[in-house]
């Protein structure tokens, strides 16, 4: 599963807690928590852009992690998103 196919809107919905799937990857969970908190506690759109960049860098380096692969699959196929969105 290539994280590149997932549009930014999905990542932003994750970072702003509009969607809250249950993930397996420890790295993903601890980073996501930090980024969600940073966006909540920092004013302005710069924080959101910065956190999105950080998230993508994390995904670039870690998308082969077995647990993260399952998490990406969950994002693509499940939760509130229909297949036409992606």
């Amino acid at each position, binding site marked *: 599963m290539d994280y590149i196919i997932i549009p930014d809107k999905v990542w932003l919905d994750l970072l702003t807690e509009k969607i*809250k799937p*249950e*993930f397996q*990857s*420890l*790295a*993903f*969970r*601890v*980073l*996501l*928590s*930090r980024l*969600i*908190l940073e966006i*909540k*506690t920092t004013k302005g759109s710069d924080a959101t852009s910065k956190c999105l960049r950080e998230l993508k*860098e*994390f995904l670039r*380096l*870690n998308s*082969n*992690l*077995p*647990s993260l692969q399952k998490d990406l699959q969950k994002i693509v196929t499940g939760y509130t998103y229909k297949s036409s969105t992606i």
Partner: protein
Amino acid sequence: MQNKLYSISEVAEKVKAGKILLLAGDEGMLSQIPSGKWIGGTIPYFMSENGGIITKDKIFVTELPDYITEISIKKYNESAVKEVYKDGQDFGFSIIIIPASGKVHLSFALNAPHYEGFATRPLIGWISGVHLNDLGKINPAVFSGQTKEKLTDAAVVLHAKLPKNKIAELSIINIFSQSDSDTIKFTENSFSAKEAIVNGKLVNFAEYVTDKKIDTRLPLVANYSGAMINISFQSVDADKKMVNFYAPVFKEVEYRLASPVSDYITSFLSEMPKTGKENILFSCNCILNFLYSELEGKITGGITGPITFGEIAYQLLNQTMTNITITDI
């Protein structure tokens, strides 16, 4: 090979043979190991293949597989430790050992989630310590095997590169979950707290813990997007009306008290992965789990490793078993 306890001469042989080692043991023992590709930290508590054990006469050895050929060993003081993620290898992993209670320990604990590159590369490790009878008399230490330096206020890190067909992944086993009790938030990032916001109301936290007769062997638990992260109680100072912790609490994070666990071993075994244990490269578990659950002589599902004064999986953890596995891609 199984990670286990060895004598000084056995460890020295491995070093001379060019093996890359992670060592844990008494300071006197580690000081006798010849220079080579190893890092180490002081601790006399271990989970061995025969169960929990306290010893100053053996060294616990984790031997990195022979397919790992590219490593670097670095030391980090308080100001440099923020570079630890940036220095890691892409598609590798890093092992960090930090002496307990020093400036690097405190700085890492408070600031790691905000380091550049946080969680982008696997960083596992532990906080070195001493026998509890030696607290205040002997300083915890770490060792860089390359230079044979003993360090009491710097971290030592082994950065390793993996071949393209291998990947490292961190996982934790935390038997503690959030109870349905009060929500607790704190007013600052700190290893201690006077005030807390309990169910939205500002209280003195020491008085709250005392009045509610809270079992401080159970940690506070925060939910990090589904990952349960503990903060262990160190002490409640009734005179100063202050509560001290073994890891910092963070403001804006919501904590709850942990649900009680009646049988650690049973709970632990139920949380363990059913497959893949043979791929665990390194594991460590918390001294508080060792003491409170009376793990001396008991076996934790065949997973062995040092019993530490804190565990690191991207950030500082408490009362948690922490593992790194290497699998084929």
